[in-house]
C-alpha cells in the first residue's frame, strides 16, 4: 500500500475518494459512484462527447490530446465491433499515479470506461494493468465482478437496455506496451511492437475494430466531468487545459508523494512548497518535469505553469506528471546514462534508429561516465539523438532522444569534465565497468 500525502493547495477530483474505502462498491455508491454513468445513459452519445470536449480534458498518459476530440474520431457506423481500452500499463519512469487510482478507486476507472463506451457506441471495454501491479489487478478483478453482480455491467446495464462488458487484462513487463498501438498488440497476445499510423486506432484498432484508448487517469476523470459539468472542470485549469492532474513528486525532495493539483500550477512552487524543497540544504540542479522522456529543465527555467501548452512553450513537456527533482550531488552524465540504459532495454527493436541509436548511446555514455570519453563523443551523442527524432513508428525513440539532447545542451560542461580519463567528480570510484575506447 502506497502512502498518501496531502497539501492545502490540492484540488481533489480524481483523488477525491482516495483513502475512503471506495474499493468497496457500497462505499463507492455512497460517494456518488455510478451516478455519472446513469446520467450518461440518459444523454445522446454526441452530447457526452461534447461535454468531454468542452471540459478541456487532455490525455493524462502524456500526449495531452483532447479526449473528447479523440472520441469524436470513432466512426458512428462500423461493421466491426468497437472497443474501449483503458491503458493501465503505467511504466514511464517517474510516474506512479495510476497505481493509486487502481488501489483506491477502481470503480471510477470502470465507470469512465463504460461512459467512453456509451459515447462512441461500443459494448466492450478492456482494462489493461501492467504485470508488476498484480495486487491492483486483483483489486480490479474484484471490482469488475462486484459491478457485474449488481447489474452495473453486462446485459442491460442499470436496466437501460444497453449492454456493456468490461474485462481485465494483465501485462507481463514491458514499457513499450504503454504506447497505444503496442498496447493493442499485447492485448491480442503478441509482442508489443507498434503499428504504423494512419490508420489510427479510432478507426482500425483492436482486432481491426475502431478503438478508443485512454489512460487510466483520463478515464477516472470522466465521471467527475459528467457530474460536475464541463464548465466547472474546464475552469479548474487554464484555457484548453481543463481540470487537475495527479503530479508524482519524486527524487531529492523533502516531501515526495502524489499530489493532485490544478493544471497550470507553478512548477517552482510545486517543488519548493508542495514537495517541501531540497533536503540537506543542497541546491536544485535540474528537474525532469513529466516522466523520463521529457526534456530536463534547469533551476532558472522552472518558474512556469504546469500545463500542456505552457510546458511546450518552455521547451519541455508536461508528459505523464512525473516530476523528478535532482539536487547538486547528481552526476548528469550518470543520469543521462541511466535514462539511456532504460530506453535501450525497453526498445522493442522494430525501428532501426531506436534499436541502434539507444544501444550506441548507452555504450557511449557508459564509456564516457567511466572516464573513456572523447571530445567528439559529446557532439556524437547529440547527432545520434537528433537523428532518432521522428524516425520511428512510436515515440520511444523520441523519448530516449529528448532528455539526452537536453542534458548534453544544458550540462555540456559536466561532459567536458569527464574527459581525458578524469574520474567522475561525483563518485569516489566509477562503479561502471569500462568498455574499450572506440576511436
Amino acid at each position, binding site marked *: 500500500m502506497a502512502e498518501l500525502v496531502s497539501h492545502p493547495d490540492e484540488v481533489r477530483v480524481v483523488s477525491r475518494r482516495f483513502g475512503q474505502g471506495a474499493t468497496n462498491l457500497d462505499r463507492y455508491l455512497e460517494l456518488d459512484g455510478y451516478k455519472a454513468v446513469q446520467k450518461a445513459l440518459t444523454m445522446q452519445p454526441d452530447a457526452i462527447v461534447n461535454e468531454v470536449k468542452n471540459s478541456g480534458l487532455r490525455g493524462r498518459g502524456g500526449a495531452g490530446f483532447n479526449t473528447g476530440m479523440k472520441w469524436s474520431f470513432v466512426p458512428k457506423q462500423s461493421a466491426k465491433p468497437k472497443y474501449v481500452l483503458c491503458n493501465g500499463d503505467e*511504466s514511464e519512469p517517474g510516474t506512479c499515479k495510476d497505481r493509486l487510482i487502481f488501489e483506491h478507486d477502481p470503480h471510477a476507472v470502470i465507470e469512465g470506461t463504460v461512459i467512453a463506451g456509451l459515447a462512441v457506441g461500443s459494448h466492450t471495454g478492456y482494462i489493461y494493468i501492467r*504485470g508488476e501491479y498484480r495486487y491492483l489487478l486483483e483489486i480490479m478483478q474484484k471490482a469488475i465482478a462486484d459491478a457485474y453482480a449488481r447489474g452495473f455491467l453486462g446485459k442491460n446495464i442499470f436496466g437501460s437496455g444497453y449492454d456493456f462488458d468490461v*474485462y481485465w487484462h494483465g501485462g507481463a513487463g514491458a514499457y513499450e506496451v504503454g504506447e497505444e498501438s503496442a498496447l493493442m498488440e499485447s492485448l*491480442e497476445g503478441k509482442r508489443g511492437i507498434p503499428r504504423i499510423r494512419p490508420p489510427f486506432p479510432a478507426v482500425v484498432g483492436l482486432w481491426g475494430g475502431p478503438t478508443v484508448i485512454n489512460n487510466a487517469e483520463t478515464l477516472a476523470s470522466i465521471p467527475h466531468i459528467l457530474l460536475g459539468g464541463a464548465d466547472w472542470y474546464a475552469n479548474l485549469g487554464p484555457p484548453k487545459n481543463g481540470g487537475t492532474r495527479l503530479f508524482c513528486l519524486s*527524487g531529492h525532495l523533502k516531501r515526495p508523494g502524489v499530489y493532485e493539483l490544478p493544471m497550470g500550477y507553478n512548477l517552482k512552487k510545486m517543488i519548493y512548497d508542495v514537495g517541501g524543497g531540497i533536503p540537506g540544504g543542497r541546491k536544485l540542479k535540474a528537474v525532469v518535469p513529466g516522466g523520463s522522456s521529457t526534456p530536463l529543465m534547469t533551476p532558472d527555467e522552472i518558474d512556469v505553469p504546469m500545463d500542456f501548452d505552457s510546458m511546450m512553450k518552455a521547451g519541455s513537456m508536461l508528459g505523464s506528471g512525473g516530476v*523528478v527533482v535532482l539536487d547538486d550531488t547528481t552526476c548528469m552524465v550518470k543520469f543521462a546514462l*541511466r535514462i539511456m540504459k*532504460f530506453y535501450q532495454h525497453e526498445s522493442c527493436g522494430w525501428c532501426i534508429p531506436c534499436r541502434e541509436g539507444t544501444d550506441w548511446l548507452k555504450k557511449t555514455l557508459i564509456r564516457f561516465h567511466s572516464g573513456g570519453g572523447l571530445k567528439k563523443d559529446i557532439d556524437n551523442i547529440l547527432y545520434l539523438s537528433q537523428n532518432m527524432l521522428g524516425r520511428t513508428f512510436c515515440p520511444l525513440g523520441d523519448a530516449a532522444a529528448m532528455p539526452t539532447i537536453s542534458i548534453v545542451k544544458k550540462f555540456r560542461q559536466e561532459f567536458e569534465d569527464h574527459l581525458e580519463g578524469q574520474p567522475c567528480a561525483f563518485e569516489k570510484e566509477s562503479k561502471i565497468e569500462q568498455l574499450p575506447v572506440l576511436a
Partner: protein
Amino acid sequence: MRFSEQFESRFAEMLTHYPTKRSVLVPTLLYAQDESGSLSDEVIKEIAGRLELTELEVRNVISYYSMLTTHPRGKYNVQVCTNIACLLRGADELFEHCEKKFGVKHKGTTADGLFSLEEVECIGACSWAPAVQVNYDFHENLTTEKLDNVLDEYRRK
C-alpha cells in the same frame, strides 16, 4: 502438465473475454509461470497446444516480456528498481548490498534456491523510492537496514 483449479477456471473464463484465443496468451503465461516457477518446455508446449499456436510463436512472445522467464528463479525474486527516481535515493547501494548479501549478480540465484536478484526498470514506486519488489510485493522507502529486515522475514517464511 497440471495447473491448479484456480488457474483452469481463470483460463476458461478469460477465453470468453476476447474474440480470439490468442489474446489470453500474455496473462496466461504469467499465471502459468507463477505456478510452475518458470516457463519450461513442457509449459510452453501445453499453452501453445491449448491456444493453437506454434511453440515458436509462444517463445517469441515470452522473449519480449521482461517478467517472463524460461529459467527457474529463486523462491523469492528480489527486484531492485534502479531507474531514475530510485537511483536518486540510493538504489545503487541497495542493489550492491543485495549482490554482496546473496553473493550473486543480476539475474543470479542463491545456492539454496531461496533468493534471486534482479535489477529492474521503473516499477511505479517513484514517490516512495527507493523500492524493491519481492515477487509481487512492494517494499518502499527502503534503506539497507530496512531491506535486511524485509529479506529476513522472507527467509523465515
